């Protein structure tokens, strides 16, 4: 059996005296698709933010790419491998293309390759007709698709999606679900936090349940 892509060990998160969760071990396999479920307040978003390096106020170790780091010392290079998309994604007030190429520029992707990936992201998200639309004028579903495409274009080793279908209308939800299924089909390593039963039931997703301060694999 191959080594997991990412492994968390002895992760503890507390708010003052109250421990939110304590996770002895959690391993995510490369190419795996995971759906993180649990009641409100169980810490799904917090766990994702720790994995993305946005919350360093926790204890525990992260094993990634053969290296072990304390979550409080989250290294910059991990940001190039793990990409987190907010529940309500933020699109910069520039243009859709600029949003799609932002992370690619940060990574120093050459012009020609960057242009190719941006075009591919536009086509993947189905936003060809909305390229000239200012991001603030996009619908909730379109913003979500743009944010997914922006994150996917970076080809991260792990994609963290926080409630990607929440607050979307029926059409936006259906389109986002289709993109999630596509990510699974592309064998991207992805973890989705959600309550949405349709996402939870997506084929090929392993269910992780965060509840009562612990995490467990859930079957069925």
């Amino acid at each position, binding site marked *: 059996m191959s080594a997991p892509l990412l492994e968390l060990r002895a992760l503890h998160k507390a708010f003052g005296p109250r421990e939110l969760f304590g996770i002895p071990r959690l391993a995510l396999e490369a190419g795996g698709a995971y759906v993180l479920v649990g009641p409100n307040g169980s810490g799904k978003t917090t766990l994702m933010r720790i994995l993305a390096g946005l919350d360093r106020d926790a204890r525990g170790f992260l094993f990634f790419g053969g290296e072990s780091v304390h979550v409080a010392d989250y290294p910059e290079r991990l940001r190039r491998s793990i990409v987190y998309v907010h529940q309500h994604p933020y699109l*910069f007030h520039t243009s859709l293309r600029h949003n799609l190429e932002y992370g690619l520029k940060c990574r120093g992707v050459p012009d020609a390759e960057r242009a190719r990936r941006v075009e591919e992201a536009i086509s993947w998200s189905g936003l060809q007709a909305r390229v000239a639309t200012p991001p603030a004028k996009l619908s909730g579903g379109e913003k979500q698709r743009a944010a997914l495409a922006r994150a996917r274009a970076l080809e991260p080793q792990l994609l963290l999606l926080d409630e990607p279908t929440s607050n979307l209308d029926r059409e936006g939800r259906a389109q986002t679900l289709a993109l999630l299924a596509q990510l699974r089909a592309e064998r991207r390593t992805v973890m989705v936090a959600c309550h949405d039963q349709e996402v939870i039931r997506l084929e090929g997703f392993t269910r992780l349940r965060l509840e009562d301060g612990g995490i467990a694999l859930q079957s069925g």
Partner: protein
Amino acid sequence: MDLLEPTTQAFRLLLAGDPELLRIIWLSLWVSVAAIALVAAPSIGLGFLLAMTRFPGQRTLVVLVQALLSFPTVVIGLVLYLLLSRRGPLGFLELLFTPWAIMIGYMVIALPILVVFTISAVQGADPRVYETARCLGAGLLKASLTTLWEVRFGILAAVVNGFGRAISEVGMAIMVGGNIAGLTRNIPTAIALETTKGDFAQGIALGLVLMVVALGVNVALAALQGEGGLR
């Protein structure tokens, strides 16, 4: 008092391109623009740091900068005068009664405006801006610049306000500039002088220029904000 006659004369002076008037206008404009250009970047940087980071004494620093906002400008002029006067610690620079002294004063007056406005703009920014930039792989500097870009209209408002305060400042400009004709006389100091002399035409002409500049800058800002609002 007859307002029509001096107002007509004021327009005549402006239309005739009176050299004395033009010299005063030019001095006011270049000194104010240069002062804001020099002080903007460090002030915006300081405002950003005060808004985004936590360090011991940070709150005191913010309160201090806020207090500077309501500091009487004549006191700023007095302190500068004492610093720049021949016997002062900076007297060797021989800047007193030169446009450079006025420029330094403008910078001191504009600094707290720029800092406080920047703090307000950055603190009002959506926290997801910085986080999104970081999540997409931006380093600390790039993510900070992205955040500033996202609140650019608030920052522009800071710059416009700083410029407005500078170009209309009288007390400090008289104290450290001396209101010397052809050298340090600018729009507000000239208005003050001509009014006391009873020469209202030049005062009205310069007042009109000041109003046009203020209006122009604010209209440009509103136009930019309108454009941004569409996004």
